[in-house]
């Protein structure tokens, strides 16, 4: 069983030394530690129970604890806090705009929300450099904004417009860009981005550059086999993967208690032989600091890091899902821990880095940006039907393939002639 450590000021040390067996090699029992940076450790579980003729979910445990403060960041400047706050606001308000567009029947299909998870999306992506890479999951729309995509890009994706990043060919956060934004488009199945992002780091390393690459997996998605394959590969190859395990307690309608038996998903790091850390996913400062340290490790060529961010998905799986299966006390508990409200309180009331007037101004500014983007997206055309046909193949020089970071180093050799191989006897 993992032993919990109190948060330490020597975070750098703890994160790089976690998940390793204790130094007493003579001990018959090995102990491993996973640092937990949270300022509260809620204990509750969700189970299926019979109530009359019905089976429903029930939450047991103490949900009365007061809301913890924001944990002071070791790295963010005052200005960065404000920028990050703006990203989170933009993320939240853009999703509210998407909900309205859906209700006005302007959206094709459903809408996916990251409500309650904006700190995790925005503050994680905020730790990456421009030349580094990110692979978002369906709820990480905030990450896409931070990577430089416009709210109108995401709106047009949902409205299936010709001008959407995928030109109408795919929806939601399912888009990317290899030239400027360095974002890998996700696919609907879960965990598949993990080996891909590891491969991006591998590609960059072959070109002489250690970069941080970041992706996400949920408490539901981490059950897939490719999650294991990808993270294990990154660990073995010592690739700079930063994996955020977003434990938002629900995989569609299945509670995390029915996805895994470990207490904390960060414990999985032990099995991969990589550092892991538990953070409060509703605290933007914890998210950023953990992401920053993991990115720095990646850039030093020290390999992957697993960060478990605990929070709750505050809406259903998608807009069609009212999430009535979620016990109400859980919503009440996490609503008090709303990541945007807490960060705003930290910036306006605790640190007073923004006056209430400046805050209002910032909110107005975000609203105005979204209004413009919304108008642009709504008024942009649908694709011509025939645009469905081309593009399955890269043809006629539509792309020039060349190493992004530089020509890979080539070993010098005195003899470059291929020797004849020995005969293999396998299935001859």
């Amino acid at each position, binding site marked *: 069983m993992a032993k919990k450590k109190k948060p330490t000021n020597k975070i750098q040390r703890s994160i790089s030394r976690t998940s390793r067996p204790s130094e007493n090699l003579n001990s018959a029992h090995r102990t491993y530690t996973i640092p937990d940076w949270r300022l509260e450790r809620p204990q509750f579980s969700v189970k299926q129970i019979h109530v009359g003729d019905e089976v429903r979910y029930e939450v047991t445990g103490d949900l009365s604890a007061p809301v913890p403060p924001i944990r002071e960041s070791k790295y963010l400047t005052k200005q960065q806090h404000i920028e990050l706050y703006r990203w989170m606001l933009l993320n939240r308000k853009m999703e509210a705009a998407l909900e309205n567009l859906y209700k006005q029947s302007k959206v094709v299909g459903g809408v996916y929300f990251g409500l309650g998870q904006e700190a995790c999306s925005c503050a994680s992506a905020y730790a990456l450099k421009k030349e580094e890479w990110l692979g978002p999951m369906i709820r990480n729309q905030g990450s896409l904004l931070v990577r430089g995509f416009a709210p109108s890009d995401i709106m047009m994706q949902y409205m299936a417009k010709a001008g959407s990043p995928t030109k109408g060919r*795919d929806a939601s956060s*399912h888009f990317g860009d*290899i030239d400027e934004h360095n974002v890998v488009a996700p696919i609907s199945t879960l965990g598949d981005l*993990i080996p*891909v992002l590891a491969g991006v780091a591998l*590609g960059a390393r072959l070109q002489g550059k250690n970069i941080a690459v970041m992706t996400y997996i949920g408490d539901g998605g981490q059950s897939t086999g490719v999650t294991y394959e990808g993270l*294990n590969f990154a660990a073995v190859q010592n690739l700079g993967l930063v994996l955020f395990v977003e434990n938002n307690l629900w995989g569609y309608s299945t509670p995390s208690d029915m996805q895994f038996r470990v207490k904390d998903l960060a414990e999985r790091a032990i099995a991969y032989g990589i550092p892991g850390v538990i953070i409060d996913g509703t605290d933007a400062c914890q998210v950023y600091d953990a992401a920053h340290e993991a990115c720095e490790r990646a850039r030093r060529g020290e390999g992957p890091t697993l960060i478990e961010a605990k929070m709750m998905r505050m809406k259903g799986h998608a807009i069609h899902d009212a999430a009535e299966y979620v016990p109400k006390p859980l919503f009440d508990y996490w609503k008090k821990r709303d990541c945007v409200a807490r960060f705003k309180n930290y910036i306006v009331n605790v640190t007073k880095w923004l006056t209430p007037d400046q805050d209002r101004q910032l909110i107005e500014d975000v609203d105005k940006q979204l209004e413009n983007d919304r108008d642009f997206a709504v008024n942009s055309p649908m694709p011509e039907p025939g645009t469905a046909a081309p593009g*399955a193949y890269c043809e006629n020089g539509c*792309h020039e*393939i060349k190493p992004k970071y530089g020509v890979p180093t080539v070993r010098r050799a005195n003899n470059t002639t291929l020797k004849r191989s020995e005969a293999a006897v396998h299935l001859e």
Partner: protein
Amino acid sequence: MQLTYLEAIRQGIWEEMERDPAVFCIGEDIGIYGGAFKVTDGFIDRFGPERVIDTPIAESAIVGAAFGASLTGLRPIAEFQFMDFIGCAFNQISNMVAKAHYRWNAPAPLVIRGPSGGNVHGGPFHSQNPEMWFVHNPGLKVVCPASAYDAKGLIKAAIRDNNPVIFFEHKYLYRRIKEEIPAEDYIVPLGKARMAREGRDLSVITYAAMVFTALEAAEVLAKEGVELEVLDLRTVSPLDRDAIAQTVKKTNKVILLHEHPRTGGLAGEIAAIINEEAFDDLDGPIVRIAALDTPVPFSPPQEEFFLPKVSDVVREARRLKAY
């Protein structure tokens, strides 16, 4: 230089790695061991562990990592120890890789290669021809060479192609066939069939090891005065529609031959192309010869019964000739 089919592939990959520093290999046991069939034997000594990467036994990770590296402008070659195991990575190939260019304008210049095919008594998991799983996947190219010359030229073309290419090497041919290979650099273009034997009476459209089955049948039939034409497709996606139509227009009678099971097999697709391109030129029914609709059995007498044989082609050709 006389090279086996396997040596030709090996030389093709080696030359591309010498020519282009963006090319690298990734797969299971491909480094010091040199791969289960020794295709990359000696590569790690020349190119180092950076460009000849041994992986855990994790096919999805191999394909995913190769794809990720290709996004940074490299040209990975992912080896599957047996193409039977490609099912483990099917989601990565079909949903992640094949759809990337269409969905988000991301080219994926990677090659996924490995041994396929039966007649080596490998049993249900070391003998399959799973190419049809990928033919039905827009965005992928699927290559199945039958000669050593083609194997080298096609692997080089596959590596230089900007699309994901699934490259099926027939393990029965690995060390059984040997040909003169030119010393200079050459490629064989993807999507172009090859006339393996000219004939005027009947056409056999086939590829990979079945080309030799058809050629042997042609020898038998030639003694009876029946001239078989054998078209080797070389690439099964995209198919060379022109070459298919041309041979049908020439001989007016056609046999479609493949090593994978009959139902949902490539013959059905080729028959549809013939309907579309050359229906009026047919002087007889389109004949299919394929493996049984079963897994590949292990025991030699059973496997022999499962696979299309020279005698099957001879029998069907006689029947069609007389039609």
